[in-house]
C-alpha cells in the first residue's frame, strides 16, 4: 500500500496546506498507511528537500521539477509556481505522469484560491472545499 504526503509551502517556507492520503488504485481505500514513526518524519523530509529545490530551480525551466530528493525509500517530487510557491509530494512509488497531472490540477485549485479577494499570498488555506477538491484530485490520479 503506498501512501502520499502532500504539502504546499509559501514563499517563506511556511506550510500553507498539508494532506496525507493512500493510493486509491488497486483496491486501496485511500487511507494513508505510513508507519507511526515515519509519519512525523514527513515534515522533516519535506523541509530538508527544500534546499535542493532552491538549487535546481534556477537550472530547470519548467514548473514540474519531478523527483528532487530521495530519503530511505521515500521520494520527494516538487512543483514550483512562478510566485515561488512550492508543492511537495512525498511518495514511495515513482509515477511521473500521474504526479504531474495531480500537481497541475492542484495548481488550478490553488490559482482559484488566490483569486479570492479575502485570501492573501502566504496565508494558510483553511477552506474545507479546497481540502475536499484536493482529495478528489488525488483519487483521480493517485
Amino acid at each position, binding site marked *: 500500500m503506498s501512501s502520499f504526503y502532500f504539502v504546499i509551502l509559501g514563499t517563506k517556507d511556511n506550510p500553507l496546506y498539508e494532506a496525507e492520503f493512500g493510493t486509491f488504485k488497486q483496491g486501496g481505500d485511500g487511507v494513508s498507511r505510513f508507519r507511526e514513526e515515519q509519519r512525523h518524519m514527513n515534515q522533516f523530509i519535506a523541509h530538508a528537500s527544500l534546499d535542493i529545490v532552491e538549487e535546481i530551480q534556477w537550472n530547470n525551466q*519548467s514548473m514540474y521539477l519531478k523527483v528532487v530528493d530521495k530519503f530511505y525509500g521515500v521520494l520527494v517530487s516538487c512543483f514550483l509556481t512562478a510566485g515561488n510557491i512550492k508543492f511537495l509530494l512525498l511518495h514511495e512509488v515513482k509515477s511521473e505522469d500521474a504526479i504531474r497531472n495531480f500537481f497541475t490540477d492542484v495548481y488550478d485549485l490553488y490559482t482559484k484560491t488566490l483569486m479570492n479577494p479575502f485570501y492573501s*499570498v502566504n496565508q494558510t488555506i483553511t477552506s474545507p472545499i479546497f481540502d475536499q477538491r484536493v482529495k478528489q484530485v488525488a483519487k483521480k490520479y493517485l
Partner: protein
Amino acid sequence: MSFDAPLPPYSTTPSAAHLSSTLYDLLLIELPPLCTSLSPDPSDLEAVYHRLSSIGHRVGLGLSEKFSRDRPRMVDTLEVIKFVCKELWGICWGKMVDGLKTNHRGTYVVTDNRFKVFERMSTERGVGVVDQAQYLWFPCGIIRGALANLGIEATVHAETTEMPIAVFKIETVQAKPPPL
C-alpha cells in the same frame, strides 16, 4: 458597443468568459472617482493613491500567478519586466508596450504611446494634470503587485506628458532577484 475577441490561449480555458470591452473601460474610468468618494477626506490625495495602489497590487498578484503558468522560469529581473510588458499588458489592455529602456542598474522606463485607459478620454486645455494622474495609479499598482509576486520589490511611478502617452518608471530595490 465594441467587442474584442479574447486572444488565445485565454479563450480556451474553461473559465474564460467573453466580456464587453466597453464595460471594462467604463469600470476602469469609474474606479478613481469611486475611491475618491470612498475616502473620508476627498481632498486627501495620499489616501486615494494608497487605496487605488493597494487594489492594483492585489489584482497584479493574482494576474501574475494565473497567467504565468507553463512558462519557462524567469531567472532574472529583466525577464520578469519583459513578462510584465508583453503578457500582462496584453491581458489588461490588449496591446504590448511601445518602449522599454533600462539603465542596467535597476531602473526601467516603460512607454506606452497609446495607453488604453487614455485612448477615449479628452481633456480641457490646461486643466487637471492631477486628475489624469489618478487614472494611472491603479495600473501602477497592478505592475507593482505583479512584480512583487514574481519576487521583485519595486516602486512604480507614472506620468503622462501628453494624452494618450503614459510613461511608467520602475525602480527595483535590488538589481538581482532576492535570495529565496
